[in-house]
């Protein structure tokens, strides 16, 4: 009974699917394909349900569609008020479906244009703020008399001279990286060498990021292996 219970438990199914996905490390095979299709199919279905209940129902069905259906006597229950403003996003949403008919598929450009305009309008000022102004603020060095230096010095037990040199390195590196992303001039001569320094700086940064993320991935792998060991009752925690 104990073995059967273990064999037909959800844990066994999860372990089987984990091993099926891991089997891809050897080569693509039918077991991996089964797990892949199951994963893709389930996640697509789950995604649809989530979209319906978290986006479509509260933002379209409840305030607009259901009250209309109630008035058409297609649905019962307590009469809900109709929010007529919702007719605009509803029409925009329906225009997405125009792609089904080749004759009217051009209509999909209307919601696209709206979405792209809105998205760009929201993203550009935010990008100016987060990607440019904040970087400028951090690159303009703090004076040695100011708190920023004192904090760094205290945090890393560095002398003020070391902190100052590190700040200079950051300052020059930022300028070099900016020079690398300058597209109007070819990377030749002294300017080319400065831009080359910029890409080296980027690669050093990417290397550090690579290392720390690999460690995070290892911890995910360890988590999964621990699950398998727990499933096999080799470890108990």
């Amino acid at each position, binding site marked *: 009974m104990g073995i059967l219970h273990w064999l037909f438990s959800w844990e066994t199914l999860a372990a089987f699917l984990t091993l099926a996905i891991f089997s891809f490390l050897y080569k693509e095979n039918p077991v991996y394909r089964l797990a892949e299709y199951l*994963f893709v199919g389930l*996640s697509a279905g789950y995604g649809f349900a989530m979209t319906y209940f978290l986006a479509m129902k509260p933002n379209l069905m409840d305030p607009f569609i259901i009250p209309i259906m109630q008035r058409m006597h297609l649905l019962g229950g307590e009469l809900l008020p109709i929010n007529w403003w919702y007719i605009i996003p509803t029409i925009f949403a329906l225009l997405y479906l125009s*792609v089904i008919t080749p004759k009217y598929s051009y209509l*999909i450009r209307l919601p*696209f244009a709206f979405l792209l305009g809105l998205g760009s309008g929201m993203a550009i000022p935010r990008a*100016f703020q987060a990607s440019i*102004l*904040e970087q400028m603020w951090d690159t303009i060095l703090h004076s040695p008399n100011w708190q920023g230096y004192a904090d760094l010095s205290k945090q890393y037990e560095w002398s003020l001279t070391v902190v100052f040199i590190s700040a200079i390195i950051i300052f020059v590196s930022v300028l070099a990286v900016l020079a690398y992303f300058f597209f109007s001039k070819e990377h030749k001569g002294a300017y080319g060498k400065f831009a080359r320094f910029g890409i080296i700086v980027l690669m050093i940064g990417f290397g550090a990021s690579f290392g720390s993320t690999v460690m995070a991935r290892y911890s995910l792998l360890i988590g999964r292996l621990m699950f398998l060991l727990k499933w096999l009752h080799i470890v108990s925690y």
Partner: protein
Amino acid sequence: MISFVLAAIFSVRPSPIVDLKVMDNPNDEGGQIVLKWEYRKDADLSQISYIQIMRIDKMGTAPIVAEELKPTAKRYMDTDLKNGHPYRYFIRVWFKDGSYIDSAISPPVVPEAQWLHKDRIAALVILLLYGALLIYYLKKARKGERLTIRPIAGLQAVDDAVGRATEMGRPLLFVLGLGTVSDIATLAGLAILKRVAMKAAEYESDIIVPCFDPVVMAAAQETVKQGYLEAGRPDLYNEKNVYFLTNDQFGYAAGIDGIIMRQKPGAIFLQGAFYAESLIIAETGHSIGAIQIAGTSSVTQLPFLIAATDYTLIGEEMYAASAYLSRDPNSLATIKAEDWMKIIFIGLILVGAMLETVAGLTGNKSWSFIKTFFAGGAQ
């Protein structure tokens, strides 16, 4: 005993709260009021148990809006208020002996929405400056002046990759990542997709585009169709090759891996917004020997793509792709304007750093005006 009780009843303790300031929260959409206060210097804060914020609306009632704040608190923001309605506040200080004292009632304050976020004026100035440069270069481009940009290695390899896949008789795989259609990286990916689709049509190769987002899928279908049309081969366009896979991150990665292993594409393009799935996809592509060209602005994923793919477009290189590949004068004008903005930023950083150093050495913070101006929204 009686005298003690009478003394307790009739003694008037001053409120420890002084200088209660109530104001409309600046730079917001309204509905928020900020309260700031100080404690009397001779107040014994150790005797205070907690403080409550009390709000009086136009009906005159006084509900508690903040329960049991610590006696060290000096600021509170009241939210979910109605714009245009006056509100007054006072602070009730509860002592450990169970008694309480109310502060003076503030004058009425009306929460309102502001049209201009004053801390974002620096961003507005930069935006206007960029707009002016853009108009200048657009005019130049329209006059027929030749605008050039330097070669970008990853983009030069696009045509070669399509050609190689064609020679091998294998399809092309284009992955747009997890971004939505309003993500700048996705838009840049779509611009590259158009060029790849044109080349695929020219070489009569198949191009497969599995999508994470249904709206991106519709945009990708339009883009590929347009690419085939512009290449003069609309008959080769197959709508079924641009399809929705799933909108689950790792389900998407598993699906792409399966496609790579089964269809064995000759060239793989990873262009868009990527997250933790980037290395899974890029490693699988590497394992089948496909030529891979990646491009993203996701800083945390760039290291993986650089390590696992043949060419990587780093951040703005990807954004410049559209102009580089199409050679459209209008697009080239935007790159020129951006380059000038970079020069301006370099200048501002240099001048700002020097002025900041002067401010530090002289102790006169008025030299920090550049930093102060740009710090408005940055802090």
